[in-house]
């Protein structure tokens, strides 16, 4: 095999894609890392802390982002998507569509002048739309590559042929409205798919009132609300009145283990709701939490003990039972109706804030990518993995890792990623 084909494409720059890339790069294999967004980092960058060590998420991720960026064997393609695949295992040709950034990567120093002056306010997707960003932006402060991007859909120059303020204020003359979208073809020996997951929208679960009740939020929104770099600067208040919440309720299995929505188990919620309750308690020792669950799933290493700690040291009460209905009182406090299984009584409890542990679902465009790559998906649109070689897709030479094949937590995604790297290396390094 030619040296050129000792090259692997990794699609998706979340923690799984990053780990797979780093392993391959350290193994001496060239990596083309394809990321759809302007920065790599994925979901892990959005999290405040991670279980069961409660490490600050971005703090343990950031070194990996930087390593990925600087590694001589890794070529990072952001704002890029796979459009076509031809060839065979060991010799794939992949067509990549790369959106223009309208910012010169070599010139931008992320000084933030342009952001300050940009007049547009756009929902910040990274912050779960809990605040606004500008039309020129960086996904998040620690984002890599740490350069700006112009969001063409919202930029006044592109929409109304006006403004160009960023261009004027940029001392480095890094703004380039003439940049064009590009197409390129890459030749690789193997491909790893690591596009991650989306979050189930609980609006369709009418009885829970999400979207109607301001004090009912999703778990990922909660991560942003409580995160120091989030919209509240880490000072947790509830959306309706900016009061500090003292009584929290977490509802597990929102949209999961539910055959009308997502029949499967979302795998991480029992653990992350415990984590979020712990962080909340660390912010304010007066906070008391109730976690409503069907089965407490904590089979991973140290997980059972973690739940125990939550119960003993963090004022968490675990309540067996799924909540069908949330109401609201006239102070906008969510009222939870639940069955206390110990007494068989149906009770009503008032909370300050309710957090919904919404299901991890396949990425919206997973089906489309599966078609392009010629790999199979399962009944729910997760990429279909081999039962006993879980990183193998249905097609030789293409491998899977992370939550795009099944909901999984970070350690499992990291394991999966290294595993996929090994399988890809098998293809490109075989004798």
């Amino acid at each position, binding site marked *: 095999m030619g040296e050129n084909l000792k090259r692997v494409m990794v699609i998706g720059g979340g923690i799984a894609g990053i780990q797979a890339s780093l392993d391959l790069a350290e193994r001496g294999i060239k990596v083309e890392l394809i990321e759809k967004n302007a920065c790599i980092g994925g979901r892990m960058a959005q999290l405040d802390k991670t279980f069961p060590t409660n490490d600050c998420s971005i703090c343990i991720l950031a070194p990996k982002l930087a390593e990925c960026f600087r590694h001589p064997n890794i070529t990072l393609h952001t704002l890029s998507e796979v459009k076509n695949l031809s060839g065979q295992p060991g010799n794939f040709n992949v067509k990549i569509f790369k959106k223009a950034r309208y910012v010169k990567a070599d010139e931008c120093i992320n000084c933030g002048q342009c952001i300050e002056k940009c007049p547009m306010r756009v929902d910040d997707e990274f912050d779960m739309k809990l605040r606004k960003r500008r039309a020129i932006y960086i996904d998040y402060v620690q984002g890599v590559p740490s350069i700006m991007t112009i969001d063409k859909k919202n930029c006044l120059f592109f929409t109304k042929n006006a403004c160009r303020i960023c261009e004027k204020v940029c001392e480095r003359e890094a703004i380039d409205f003439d940049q064009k979208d590009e197409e390129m073809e890459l030749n690789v020996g193997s491909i790893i798919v690591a596009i991650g997951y989306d979050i189930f929208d609980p609006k369709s679960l009418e*009885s829970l009132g999400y979207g109607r009740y301001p004090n009912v939020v999703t778990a990922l929104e909660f991560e942003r609300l409580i995160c120091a770099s989030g919209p509240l600067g880490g000072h947790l208040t509830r959306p309706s009145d900016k009061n500090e919440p003292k009584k929290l309720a977490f509802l597990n*299995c929102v949209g999961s*283990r*539910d*055959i*009308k*929505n997502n029949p499967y188990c979302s795998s991480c919620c029992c653990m992350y709701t415990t984590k979020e309750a712990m962080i909340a308690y660390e912010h304010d020792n007066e906070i008391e939490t109730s976690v409503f669950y*069907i*089965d407490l799933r904590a089979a991973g290493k140290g997980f059972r003990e973690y739940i125990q700690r939550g119960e003993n040291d963090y004022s968490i009460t675990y309540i*067996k*039972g*799924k*909540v*069908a*209905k949330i109401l609201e009182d006239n102070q906008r406090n969510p009222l939870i*109706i*639940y*069955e*206390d*299984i110990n*007494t*068989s*009584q*149906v009770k*009503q409890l008032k909370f300050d804030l309710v957090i919904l542990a919404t299901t991890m679902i396949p990425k919206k465009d997973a089906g489309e990518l599966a078609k392009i790559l010629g790999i199979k998906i399962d009944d729910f649109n997760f990429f279909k993995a081999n039962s006993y070689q879980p990183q193998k897709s249905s097609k030789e030479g293409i491998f899977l890792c992370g939550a795009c094949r099944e909901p999984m937590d970070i350690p499992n995604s990291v394991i999966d990623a290294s595993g996929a790297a090994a399988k890809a290396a098998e293809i490109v390094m075989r004798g």
Partner: protein
Amino acid sequence: MQMVDFEFRNELIKEDFSLNYCYQCGTCSSSCPVAFVTKGEFNPRKIIEQSLLGLKDQKPNVWLCCTCQMCVEECPQKVFLTEIFEKIKNKIVLLGEPYPKTFKMQAKSIIENGLAIPLTQPIIRRRDQLGLPKVESANIKELKKLLDATDFEKKIKIHEVSK
């Protein structure tokens, strides 16, 4: 202590297969208005568990189900609770066990008048006043034939005096 009656359990499962899918999450009781006001005295989840366990001797008051079907809509496993309760009630009736007399009274009226609420003279007058057309009710003889075909009177023990 109650013994699990596997035969009875299997009988109920045969009646409504969806029973099997229940994993006792309690969504049904959380959504049930009767469970709420009775503080769980009527508890749909428990009736399902009882059925799954085939606890034949325990007689939950299934007649308290208000048939609102909220539990059916909310159940994440698509257990058809209201239908299961209906089947349990049918079974109770068939076995000749007591059931609320209002039900029997309604059945009687249907057998006799074709309607659950017979038309009275004052109502007929009122209908006239409001300019409403005359109600021509069902042919009782024809109805009787049909009810005989389903063995209705016998099934519901129409002639036995209920408590």
